[in-house]
């Protein structure tokens, strides 16, 4: 795939006029997607796709187009040549862009992570065998992902990864289920079986009579999967320079009024240890580490090239939306296996679901508990919980009410595949919270 990319990028650059800058970005994947329901197969899909984004710049005018390609250089050369001509014609109608900024230094990077992926037949065999007699519903996604960047200014980046992700639920009934994810680059049947055994053990607890809670404030332990959802909300609208400067950041009170989270909270964009590529759409290399929240204080914003021009600062390789792709919440000191004892009596929240802001300026969030969440008494699981809605601010959950973060953390790769498989991830501990406001 790399040779294909280099050949076409070189071909396009050979056609660049002296006044033009040509940028190519390729995203390609060959994926197997298998859906399961009731321990049988619902849908199995293979996807082979190549998309190519071509940028033409002349002076301070820029135009972009993204097209699907066959993935064969002989066929795609002509298509890209035609696209280049279309962009040349279109550029005449494009206004000057005062905020145009692309990488002009001839930098290069490459990263390749090979794996050992299972054949779909093996996945179907192992999943159906493991789910026999159970109500298993799940989704397997696997295959190679390739991303390339090239510009006529000499920039070259390459990122390739082979990965799989299998997320599944064992259902007890209605909305009571144990959710598990097994992801990586090399499929290990024994590791999968071990996770399945653990999930079966958890499932047994869901058979007990569920506890219905009244609205109110409850002591809570948020497992890493639940923390992932809360951090996702901060990522959506919290860390970008543009949202900060236009006062739309959910963390605007930290930026303007010195509001703080707990000193336990240190959040970074940790590209070095993430799965996402180390470069962004304009060719800038991401620094290995950007401190977003430092011991509870808002730190460095994510700055896209466009915002860098607009606000007169340096870019730190952020994407156009200025959202983190390799978010990292620092570990705390609470041992995972002591979490229930530290919780004492309260709720263990395995997952949260469908979060949104009920007041963005105040970073007030709402969402639902989901999957395996439990009522805990004296450090022991007492009963599964019926789903409850929470509505509380991040300043309380991760601020005044945060008692501890766990020493152990989970790396949670995104399972999103809108248009293409995501390479984003979150690394987070669990959190012990003095009270969480439940409302419905």
């Amino acid at each position, binding site marked *: 795939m790399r040779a294909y990319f280099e050949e076409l990028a070189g071909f396009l650059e050979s056609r660049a006029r002296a006044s033009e800058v040509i940028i190519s970005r390729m995203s390609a994947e060959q994926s197997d997607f298998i*859906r399961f*329901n*009731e321990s*049988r*197969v*619902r*849908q*199995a*899909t*293979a*996807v*082979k*796709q190549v*998309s190519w984004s071509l940028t033409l710049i002349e002076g301070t005018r820029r*135009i*972009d*187009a*993204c*097209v*699907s390609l*066959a993935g064969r250089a002989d*066929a795609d050369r002509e298509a890209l040549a035609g696209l280049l001509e279309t962009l040349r014609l*279109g550029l005449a*109608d*494009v206004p000057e*862009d005062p905020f145009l900024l692309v990488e002009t230094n001839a930098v290069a990077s490459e990263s390749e992570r090979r794996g050992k992926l299972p054949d*779909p037949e093996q996945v*179907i065999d192992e999943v159906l065998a493991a789910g026999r007699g159970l109500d298993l*519903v*799940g*989704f397997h996604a696997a295959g190679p992902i390739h991303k390339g960047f090239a510009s006529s200014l000499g920039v070259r980046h390459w990122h390739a990864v082979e990965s799989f992700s299998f*997320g*599944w*639920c064992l259902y007890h009934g209605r*909305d009571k289920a144990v*959710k598990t994810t097994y992801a990586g680059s090399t499929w290990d049947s024994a590791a999968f079986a071990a996770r399945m055994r653990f999930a079966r053990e958890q499932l047994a607890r869901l058979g007990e009579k569920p506890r219905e809670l009244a609205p109110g404030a409850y002591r809570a332990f948020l497992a890493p999967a639940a923390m992932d959802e809360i951090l996702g909300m901060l990522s959506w609208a919290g860390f970008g320079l543009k949202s900060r400067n236009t*006062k*739309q950041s959910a963390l605007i009170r930290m930026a*303007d*009024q010195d509001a703080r989270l707990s000193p336990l909270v240190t959040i970074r964009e940790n590209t070095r240890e993430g799965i996402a590529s180390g470069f962004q759409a304009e060719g800038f290399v991401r620094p290995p580490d950007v401190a977003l929240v430092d011991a509870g204080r808002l730190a460095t914003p994510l700055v896209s090239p*466009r915002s860098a021009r607009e606000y007169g600062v340096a870019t730190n390789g952020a994407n156009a939306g200025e959202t983190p792709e390799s978010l990292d919440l620092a570990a705390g000191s609470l041992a995972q296996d002591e979490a229930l004892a530290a919780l004492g009596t309260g709720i263990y929240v395995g997952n949260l*679901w*469908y979060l*949104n802001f*009920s*007041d*963005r*300026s105040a970073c*007030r969030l*709402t969402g*639902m508990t*989901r999957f395996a969440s439990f009522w805990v008494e004296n450090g022991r699981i007492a009963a599964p919980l019926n*789903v409850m*809605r929470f*509505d509380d601010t991040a300043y309380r959950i991760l601020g005044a009410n945060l008692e501890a973060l766990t020493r152990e953390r989970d790396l949670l790769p995104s399972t999103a*595949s*809108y*248009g293409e498989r995501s390479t984003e991830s979150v690394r987070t501990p669990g959190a012990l919270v003095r009270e969480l406001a439940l*409302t*419905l």
Partner: protein
Amino acid sequence: MLDTLQRDFRSIAPAVDFCALRFVEESSEYLQVRQDVAEPPQLAVSRGAMVTVIHDGGLGYAATSDLSRGGLAAAMDRARRYAKLTAGRSVVDYGAMQMPRPNGAYRPGVGRDPATLSRRDKYDLLAREASQCRVDDRIVDWEANLWTTTSKQAYLTADGGAIEQEFHFLVPNLSATAHASGQTQTRTHAGRYNGFCRQGGLEILEAFGLEGAGRAVGEGALELLAAPNCPSGTMDVLLMPDQMMLQIHESIGHPLELDRILGDERNFAGTSFVTLDMFGSYRYGSDLLNVTHDPTRREQFASYAWDDDGLAADKQFLIRKGILERPLGGAISQKRAGMQGVANTRACSWNRAPIDRMANLNVEAGQSPMDELVAAIDLGVLMRTNVSWSIDDSRNKFQFGCEYGRMIRGGKLAEVVKNPNYRGISATFWRSLSGVGDASTFEVMGTPFCGKGEPSQVIRVGHASPACRFSGVDVFGGES
């Protein structure tokens, strides 16, 4: 191209129980002006095909962006292998399906073709209205954008079915954000998050009311900035169509999707509080509630003549006089559930397999003019323009928020309030429907971004609704 595709497909289709090819070519242009600066145009052409193979009871899909004869043949091999691997191990015997064999074409036309307006003229129009938003220095961000898309689709079956459909979509947006004293408020014109989205051409901009809207949007943001928080308490709400669209979508649309009811989505999007035994008898809402799946309203965002399994689409009541009648389920789900549904098996593009999706899901207009709806409220809030949505995975316990609220006291509109939110439970909320607006309050809305499915899909849906009144709702405002 279609002729070549059809010829290649028919010549290489394997000897299997059923084989189909779905081709999609989608071309789009996105233009935005923010803070008086035109951003570079974003053009896109997504083109590819998906092969479906059913054989010996198994089902396989394979998608490719390589539309050559060799590319299609490779996709067929992959789909055929998947059909083999899943035979006898699937949730249903796909071989027992009688898949549609449709023929025909659907090309509703573009209306006033956006191509007749130059890109520069479009930028000028956006820049003019966006600049008018900045009515004073408290407006800290303002923007306008325009997104046009043409989608050409074909569905071919090896046994002779052949349909072509062509759609034209246009989505305008205009918004302003105001900030002062630690408070930020955003006001958008005619729907946030692309809520004013329709099929057609430039006539949609007139329906949207873009020209002359800028100043009102800026003043609207300042009005919210100066407004008190919405009060808390149990009271009536009067939801305007740009909030009703969300209410319909989340607490009628998703729970009625048959694949959710059958459990397919439990690993991601969730299940449903609705069960198969409820259809035909369950009281979903008050007598005033009439809900239709209506793919026939041409200007609406998700109108079409056939779904992506080739099933012919028509208007059907899902809820009539409050009683649940039928689910949102296409041919495969109908077979699995043993009940009638609608033609709504849809994929977001060529690279995703079709699943049950709501399309145009509408609340039918009632009899009450707007002044009657207001006059019947002793204490309540009129809410406009969805800004926040959250609902549990059974689509029951919800909490929604709007940009704009206006108190109603003693049957009269009173002061504007900010951050209006309300919460409820789907299973009981619709039974509190106490007034349905007449045709004068009816608006056609929708969203380009309904997320569901594994692998993930975002798809276009339409929601048309009159203003609706609900009694005794739990209402609250923002953080003080």
